């Protein structure tokens, strides 16, 4: 009898627990995502993109009790850069090229898989990547390699609508996870290596109709157009391939903009080339520009400013300031006032020689290197698109850096042909020995024959008030891993070598590690189901989920 009744209670409890799972992801819920840390509702865990979770069941004291709970194997080869969402016990995860999976977040078993086949003549510079979905109501939204936006029923895994964002034949693609604000789905386009004219656009979440479009290169008559000559603006790149952030109080959307095109030949596009390599602040209802800040004018180094804008309210010289924290691919860390874009601080976080410093307004003082001489940081930058984290508990900003890594850039005249790469030259990574292996976009194999002589990685913590490093956790190979911090002052991250680390967020001390054997090229996420905290991370072709030993 006792057994039977406890079973009945257990079933009843399970039912009660499961009921809220039916609740829809309203715009209101996303606004207050930090209030439901059991879920991971947007690409960066919340509109402020701190990637900080208030979950604290896993702590420095019990971290050694972490154990493998489950694995999902990717069915497709290639770097797996997807960032999962977790909503009421279900994980939504994409894999190459444009599949979506709904996974039981407790067991790793699939509810459904959605396949989308992008057009065979899709163009992407750097792999058939997809970084994840957005969710509103019962609908998931995914950008595709052939530059469409699709809406998918989150319960059935079947499509609801499919909208063309741009012409993939002209080199446009969408690899980023969309961002939902109110009733709109917002995406930006990739294609900065193909002579596109980039943009960020908003779509009606119900119908897929475009509501507004912000061109990242101003057209004739628009402010900023004077930073381009002739017809250069038509093929000037300025893609927008990483998800932005949103401040509901200011009602401002922040988005990073990519490199100008052709990539390496600034002589072919004289001028500052706005809004390439900038952050733009937009009205999310209309797409109108409120302010912009350009990090690298007339960029010859491919220093996309596609980092995630991290919104933090911090004390600034005795006064509270609404800041945006930004570690840029160009090697400088910036603090801006996000109400108006005013430059507050800029400091190099790695070796920089393309510029000898920033002026009072944050503009770089350019010091181009002679032809054939290396430029630091190299083409992949001091950091890149890898999601950073800011912990309001420690007040520190965390991200992956590439150290002692330089490139030799070469300028050439490129002719624009629709759909073809528009490079304007080339680059090679500076190597200590001629023709020895160098670091590429992804890890080239299990043996590190390029060695730290060509560059190495690190996870670093910066104090936003000074721009100085508080601690450095060095890695031998470079790292594309993102960051996750928690309220128990843990920092989870990884790297190309396949180690998954838990560090002390205050000191950078390694508290726990495990070798997952495949590159970690995304950020971990954390969530809670059935009262238990989990941490998931993608390594190579597996998504691995850890939890505390029962």
């Amino acid at each position: 009898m006792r057994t039977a009744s406890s079973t009945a209670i257990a079933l009843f409890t399970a039912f009660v627990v499961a009921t809220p799972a039916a609740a829809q992801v309203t715009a209101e819920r996303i606004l207050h995502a930090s209030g439901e840390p059991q879920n991971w509702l947007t690409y960066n865990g919340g509109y402020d993109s701190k990637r900080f979770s208030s979950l604290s069941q896993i702590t420095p004291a019990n971290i050694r009790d972490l154990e493998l709970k489950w694995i999902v194997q990717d069915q497709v080869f290639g770097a797996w850069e997807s960032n999962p969402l977790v909503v009421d016990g279900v994980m939504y995860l994409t894999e190459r090229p444009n599949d979506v999976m709904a996974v039981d977040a407790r067991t790793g078993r699939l509810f459904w898989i959605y396949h989308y086949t992008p057009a065979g003549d899709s163009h992407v510079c750097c792999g058939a990547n997809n970084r994840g979905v957005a969710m509103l109501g019962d609908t998931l939204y995914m950008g595709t390699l052939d530059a469409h936006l699709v809406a998918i029923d989150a319960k059935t895994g079947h499509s609801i609508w499919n909208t063309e964002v741009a012409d993939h034949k002209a080199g446009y693609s969408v690899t980023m996870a969309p961002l939902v604000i109110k009733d709109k789905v917002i995406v930006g386009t990739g294609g900065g290596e193909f002579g596109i004219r980039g943009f960020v656009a908003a779509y009606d979440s119900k119908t897929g109709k475009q509501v507004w479009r912000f061109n990242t290169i101003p057209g004739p008559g628009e402010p900023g157009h004077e930073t381009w000559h002739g017809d250069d603006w038509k093929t000037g790149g300025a893609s927008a391939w990483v998800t932005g952030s949103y401040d509901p109080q200011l009602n401002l959307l922040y988005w990073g903009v990519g490199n100008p095109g052709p990539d390496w030949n600034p002589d072919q596009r004289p001028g500052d080339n706005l809004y390439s390599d900038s952050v733009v602040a937009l009205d999310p209802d209309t797409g109108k520009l409120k302010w912009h800040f350009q990090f690298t004018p007339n960029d010859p180094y491919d220093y996309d400013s596609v980092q995630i804008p991290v919104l933090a309210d911090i004390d600034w010289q005795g006064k509270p300031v609404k800041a945006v924290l930004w570690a840029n691919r160009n090697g400088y860390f910036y603090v801006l006032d996000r109400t108006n874009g005013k430059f507050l601080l800029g400091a190099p976080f790695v070796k920089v020689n393309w510029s000898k410093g920033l002026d009072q307004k944050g503009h770089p003082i350019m010091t181009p290197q002679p032809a054939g001489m290396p430029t630091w940081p190299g083409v992949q930058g001091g950091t890149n698109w890898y999601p950073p984290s800011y912990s309001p508990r420690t007040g520190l900003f965390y991200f992956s850096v590439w150290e002692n890594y330089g490139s030799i850039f070469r300028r050439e005249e490129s002719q624009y042909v629709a759909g073809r790469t528009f490079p304007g030259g080339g680059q090679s990574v500076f190597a200590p020995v001629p023709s020895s292996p160098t670091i590429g976009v992804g890890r080239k194999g299990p043996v590190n024959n390029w060695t730290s002589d060509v560059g190495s990685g690190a996870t670093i913590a910066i104090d936003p008030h000074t721009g100085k490093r508080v601690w450095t956790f060095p890695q031998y190979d470079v790292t594309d891993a993102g960051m996750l911090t928690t309220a128990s002052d843990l920092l989870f991250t990884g790297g190309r070598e396949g180690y998954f680390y838990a560090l002390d967020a205050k000191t950078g001390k390694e508290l726990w590690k495990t070798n997952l054997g495949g590159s970690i090229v995304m950020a971990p996420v954390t969530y809670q189901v059935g009262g238990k905290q989990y941490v998931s991370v993608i390594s190579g072709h597996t998504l691995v989920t850890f939890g505390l030993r029962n």
Partner: protein
Amino acid sequence: MRSAGVIAGAVFLVVGAISGLAESAFAQGSSQQYGTANIQAGYRLYASQCALCHGGNGDGVAGINLARQQFRRVSTDADIRRTVTGGIAAAGMPPFQFRPAELDAIIAYIRSGFDLEGASFALGDGARGKAIFDGKGGCTVCHRVHGNGSRNAPDLSDIGALRKPSAIQRSILQPAAAMQPINRPVRVVTHDGRVIQGRRLNEDTETVQLITRDGMLVSLSKNDIQDFELGKTSGMPSFAGKLSTAEVADLLAYLLSLKG
């Protein structure tokens, strides 16, 4: 007018380089020389005339990888010259009307492995090169090919597929400057007092893997290491002055033939 002047200048350079090379080739018997200027001139011709079908990396036609010297119908320089000039109607390759110096430049670019930054090199006779490798050169004292020789230095059984001609030539003539960073000798002292010496095979944040002088594969956790010393110089002697120019060309031809 300006364009015409530039072209004329380029042709003059090519011809100048060729005539210079022809003399030295004559002096070395059967060696075939490929000069840097010629390789670079070949790149320009290749990019404008060949890359459309063969691709920027030389692998645009199925079964052929020009940069890696993988061909379907040709093996010698004369074969390439004949194919380019005559075309292959069945495969859709048209005949090209290049001047002899231009043909030489394209061949130099292909033979260099598309190595724009590489030094000039010469290729001799592979069979004579093997004899030098196994005999006079003493290469097998440290290196190994297809199961023969020592494991002290890198196994060269597939070196011709991995490295470009100028890089291999540099290794023969200036081994210290050409040593790949991963191959550096390592001397480790562990916390428990063991001294381990060998050649580095792999390294990451937490561990290092090496092969010892007696052929043991060893993997060490950096937590267990007290001293970690990476040798800066190669143990390999330079063969500059020890082998004649023709012998180096023979040895290079042999090494390039090793493709696993």
